[in-house]
């Protein structure tokens, strides 16, 4: 980063503004959709999709993940794997109910 030139930075700043506008837009979208009271499945899908896009924007641009070093990617990839495992946890707990009388 320390080699970045002033012009690069001004370019980045423009990007930040665009991302900011996109985030605002997506926030409005997701709230608006919630007022439609879609059925649960669609609502969850939509809300999480929008949230994921927003989160990716923040991570990619504000957190510069789009141009990060390999080692950070590796760390995060590992974390993602374990995070997914954590998300499996409710499923493995739920399986128990197959035995419930």
């Amino acid at each position, binding site marked *: 980063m320390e080699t970045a030139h002033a012009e690069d930075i001004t370019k980045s700043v423009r990007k930040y503004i665009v991302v900011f506008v996109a985030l605002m837009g997506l926030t409005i979208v997701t709230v608006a959709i919630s007022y439609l009271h879609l059925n649960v499945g669609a609502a969850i899908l939509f809300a999480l999709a929008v949230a994921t896009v927003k989160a990716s924007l923040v991570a990619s641009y504000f957190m510069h993940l789009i141009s990060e070093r390999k*080692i950070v990617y590796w760390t995060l990839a590992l974390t993602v794997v*374990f995070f997914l*495992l*954590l998300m499996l*946890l409710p499923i*493995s*707990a739920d*399986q*128990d109910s197959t*035995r419930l009388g």
Partner: protein
Amino acid sequence: MADGHISHKQVEGIGVGVQTHVHHEEHHHELSFLRQYVFSTDHKVIGIQYGITSLLFLLFGFTLMMIMRWQLAYPGEAIPLIGQWLGPDRAPDGIMLPEFYNQLGAMHGTIMVFLGVVPLAVGAFGNYVMPLQIGAVDMAFPKLNMMSYWVYFTGGVTMLVSFFLPGGAANSGWTSYAPLSVIATVGQTVWLIGMVFLITSSLLGSVNFIVTIVQLRTNGLTFMRLPFFVWAQFVTSFLLLLAFPPLEAAGVLQLMDRIAGTSFFMPSGLVVSGVPLTNAGGGSPLLWQHLFWFLAHPEVYVLILPAMGIVAEIIANNTRKPIWGYKSIVFAAVFLGFMSFVVWAHHMFMTGMGTVISTFFQTTTMIISIPSIIILTAFFLSLWGGSIRFTTPMLFALAFLPMFGIGGLTGLPLGLSAPDIHLHDTYYVIGHFHYVVAPGTLMALFAGIYYWYPKVTGRKMSDVLGRLHFWGSFIFLNGVFMPMFIQGLAGVSRRLYDGGAQYAHAQSVLQWNEVMSVSAWCLGLAQIPFIINFFWSAKKGEKVADNHWEATTLDMAATTSPPLAHGNFARVPEVHRGPYEYSVPGATTDFIPQHVRTESNVERGEHR
């Protein structure tokens, strides 16, 4: 630290060790006593702080168990000597109450694991040795390092204080299963707060360790040239980093259940002591178990990996040959760390699991036994062709192998769900894990203490006392834990206040309780030579050369004993070869330190 003033000690190059005498501190400003020994940011001082504190906790945790073992051997009889000191709400007339027994059990488990072994293996050995082995001047974040220790200390004190609360300390087992823990006395709340401190400390520590290993490795020290000990610490740190937060979350949820009256772990319709509970309900008791074991299984590898690291160093050094299959043990350790996240529910086979999930966890459990077997096999094969020196650290390291073997092998029947029907929550489980943590890990930790003691103090511990300590510990550890398998196979449950005296199926194995207890007390006696040795040698031990063990790794070969107070090295060494270049054919000495630049290709270790 022992001789008090180490900062000016000059480097004496010995053998092929460091030849430079440059004192690299330009202007040496004196630190106050407080900054130097109490709130120090030097990883070596912090390592020693961790070491002393965790040893004291180990001793304390062991004392709790020695008291418990009285009740197990002689249920309902007054505890001699200390019985009258315990007070009427713990042991009226010296006779232990069941409430107090449960407190002792829960706190023994907690203290041994979280306040004893992990801080000793990671906080003390990791902190002291790892930066030296990678040629770093200190940890990457010295202030965080100091904080990590003090947060750990606070957590420990919190745990200790909980004994004096009304109702005493936590009494729902170290596993704190809900709902029992949610309706338990206030000690459980303090236990949770203490755990939050300990988890925070671990997180700070693990971030620091990983950054240090990745960023501060000296020139030439590639990952595949790291001593196995450093690898072990590296994998361990990742386990701590990623497995502990879910327990922190679970701890917060349990705190909420206890304090704010939520029902995360409380289903509806509970009746406790005949009184219906008024909580909202809707929670899941099994959620706690899933979150707990998501940490606690990786945690058990946190207990074993550093121990394996220590054993690898000592075996290479005392066989005077390279560790067999360095690459395979490194990959095995990484794989072990990874797999440790996917076996957690093998602790929960009896909670009502269906076939699919139980098959998944049985399979992963069988898979995870493979890397352990690979590592152990590599250690055994390393002995072949060696020139084995039975030094005191080597004795302990060698004992680790079969002891861990017994512990690991007895994990196999537990890992299969069908046999676990009979063995779950019996003394067989207690026997299994004590063989890995006590005769296994503890032996390795003792080995490490004897091995690095000369590095820390410049003096060697007495071999006579060391051997006394070794044989006493070895014999009595087996005396305590072997009979547990017998009791477990007979079906005797764990955590029984009277050791099973009421049960018909326990009658035929009840006599072992006394054997185990006497062994435990003798084991206590066997520690006396160690404690004497530990303190006596610091002042009076034989002074030894800087690289007393003639080792190849930077910690031993490139530093003074004790290492410089500031900066560790007179000149930061550069590394030219792998960690265990012992008995290289054609070399002039039977060890070539990692940092020594040599003329011939042979000695550069390039002939392979």
